[in-house]
């Protein structure tokens, strides 16, 4: 009952000084907007990367000669490593009983042609028939390669949606012949569109059987990349250990030397990415928070002015029986009403701006609960922190001095 009245008093005081309240609000709006924009944009990017990595599935890991490079020294160190060969695949298949599926693959960048049209720098992936079962991508049209395609080295190709769009818009691509490098391939299927990330299309690939790939391009210089699916998420770590043991033995790694190959999971990539960008992200949020602090100081300043201006009002209220906490609450509500309404506008604006920014690099964001909670708590916190001192000053006034204040 009292609280409701105090809240109405606070709001009507703010209404009485519309311009002043509006300008004060502006400080908070700018502050919260900048924090919100940064948080939303960062969240959006993290979400997009996470989505992309989740294609691997939780029980899948990748073994490669080099998977992660975070420094120049690391590059020069890892570049000396031996490639992973077909013997390794055979050994793992034999010795890793926790591995459900192993799909070796190799990459090459090449030109592809259809009729007189051509595309340069297309990602050519040599893979086995079970690749489609391990990596989560959907077949939109036709089929993926079969065991026999690989076994009999059939020149068949499975294409990304960007290739279909460029070469076969309005046509049925199945059965058409395209040239990958110098050789001819028959299109057997099309992958579902994956869209783009950070402005790069993720659909500019073709997949051919690994046997055919080796025949055409030779054994890949960088070695094979193994995509391995463990029998379940629970045995993922054990399966990774089994693979590690096999590879270390095959590659004669001394017992006290580190692995001379990389094993990564979707989670480990995500963790690494997060830890690498952590300082950067915290820095961004930190810098944008400065404007909230500035906004908070503006609120505090205005509240100090307001308390001084209304000394007599405080005296009147006290003389008719307002307690300290009544006065405290009234002025705290004023500060909170300012920062919270500024915060709400800031959350909205921040989201709109982040949407526009992220839209420029072909990603979408959804308003995340984290960003909204952060925005609300930032504005509430600002109101409380910067509003408490003026409110205490008001609450502690001596009624006699306040009443005689001119």
């Amino acid at each position, binding site marked *: *009952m*009292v609280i409701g*009245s*105090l809240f109405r*008093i606070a709001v*009507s005081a703010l209404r*009485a000084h519309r311009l002043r309240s509006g300008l004060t609000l502006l400080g908070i709006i700018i502050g919260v907007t900048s924090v919100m924009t940064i948080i939303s944009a960062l969240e959006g990017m993290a979400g997009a990367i996470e989505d992309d990595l989740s294609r691997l599935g939780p029980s899948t890991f990748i073994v490669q000669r080099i998977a992660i490079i975070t420094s120049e020294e690391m590059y020069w160190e890892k570049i000396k490593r031996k490639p992973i060969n077909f013997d390794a695949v055979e050994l793992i298949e034999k010795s890793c009983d926790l591995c459900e599926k192993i799909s070796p693959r190799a990459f090459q960048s090449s030109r592809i042609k259809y009729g007189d049209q051509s595309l340069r720098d297309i990602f050519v992936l040599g893979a086995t028939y079970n690749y489609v079962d391990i990596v989560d991508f959907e077949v939109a049209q036709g089929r993926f390669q079969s065991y026999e395609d690989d076994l009999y080295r059939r020149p068949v190709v499975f294409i990304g949606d960007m290739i279909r769009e460029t070469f076969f818009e309005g046509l049925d691509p199945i059965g058409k012949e395209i040239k990958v490098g110098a050789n001819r391939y028959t299109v057997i299927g099309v992958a579902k569109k994956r869209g783009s990330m950070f402005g790069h299309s993720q659909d500019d690939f073709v997949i051919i059987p690994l046997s055919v790939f080796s025949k055409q391009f030779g054994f890949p210089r960088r070695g094979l990349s193994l995509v391995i699916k463990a029998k379940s998420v629970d045995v993922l770590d054990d399966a990774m250990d089994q693979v590690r043991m096999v590879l270390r033995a095959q590659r004669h790694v001394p017992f006290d030397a580190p692995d001379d190959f990389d094993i990564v999971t979707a989670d480990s990539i995500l963790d690494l990415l997060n830890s690498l960008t952590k300082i950067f992200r915290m820095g961004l949020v930190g810098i944008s928070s400065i404007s909230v602090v500035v906004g908070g100081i503006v609120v505090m300043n205005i509240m100090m002015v307001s308390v001084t201006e209304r000394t*007599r*009002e405080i*005296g*009147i*209220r*006290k*003389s*008719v*029986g*307002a*307690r*300290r*906490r*009544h006065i405290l609450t009234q002025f705290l509500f004023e500060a909170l009403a300012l920062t919270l309404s500024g915060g709400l506008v800031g959350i909205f604006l921040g989201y709109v701006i982040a949407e526009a920014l992220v839209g420029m690099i072909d990603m979408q964001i959804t308003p995340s609960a984290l960003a909204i909670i952060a925005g609300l708590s930032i504005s509430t916190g600002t109101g409380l922190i910067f509003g408490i001192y003026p409110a205490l000053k008001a609450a502690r006034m001596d*009624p*006699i001095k306040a*009443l005689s204040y001119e």
Partner: protein
Amino acid sequence: MPLIETKNLWKTYQMGTEEVHALRGVSITIEKGEYVAIMGPSGSGKSTLMNLIGCLDTPSQGEYFLNSRKVSQMNDDELANIRNREIGFVFQTFNLLPRATALHNVELPLIYNGSSAQTRREKALHALDRVDLGDRVTHKPSELSGGQRQRVAMARALVNDPSLLLADEPTGNLDSKTSIEIMKLLDALHHQGNTIIIVTHEKDIAQHAHRVLSILDGQIAEDIIVPDHQRNGVH
């Protein structure tokens, strides 16, 4: 059982290094239903005494009982509670909230004791009726005359049915015609059974009361019962 009983009240202010004794041992007793004027020149300590009686301040020494409750050692919030329930103030400068309507100004004391919106409105309207301002409830102070403003302040003082009406120079800012009108209203309120204390330096005003306490240099100089035939105002 007296309404007000003070025992040897002292109030000392520290002015730099010097101690100023605004009150030097004031002991008074005021019964329920009395109409008392506190008189004295400026600097005599009458405002200090009024602040103590009105529970706006606490004494440096001595005891003060209001309705048998010892208020001289209460803290800020307890005093606020007493002011809210027991005391109605009428000030020389009216002390109304300038942006609030007459009705809202009168409702003010009720906000702080948690009365419902409906009770507040009913009581405030009733109080405004008692001061003949039933037709001015939505006016703001700036839209009212000085006398009307003081009557709004009196309605505010009455709204909680206090034990004591404390008027500090209630006619100080009013012309003589309006002053008479306000004093008539105070006389009528006394007639209805309210206990009233007026602080004033004007003899005319003081002579509306039944008892005049003269204060000089922080002490009670005289305590006189005014005979009926010497009193001003209607009876």
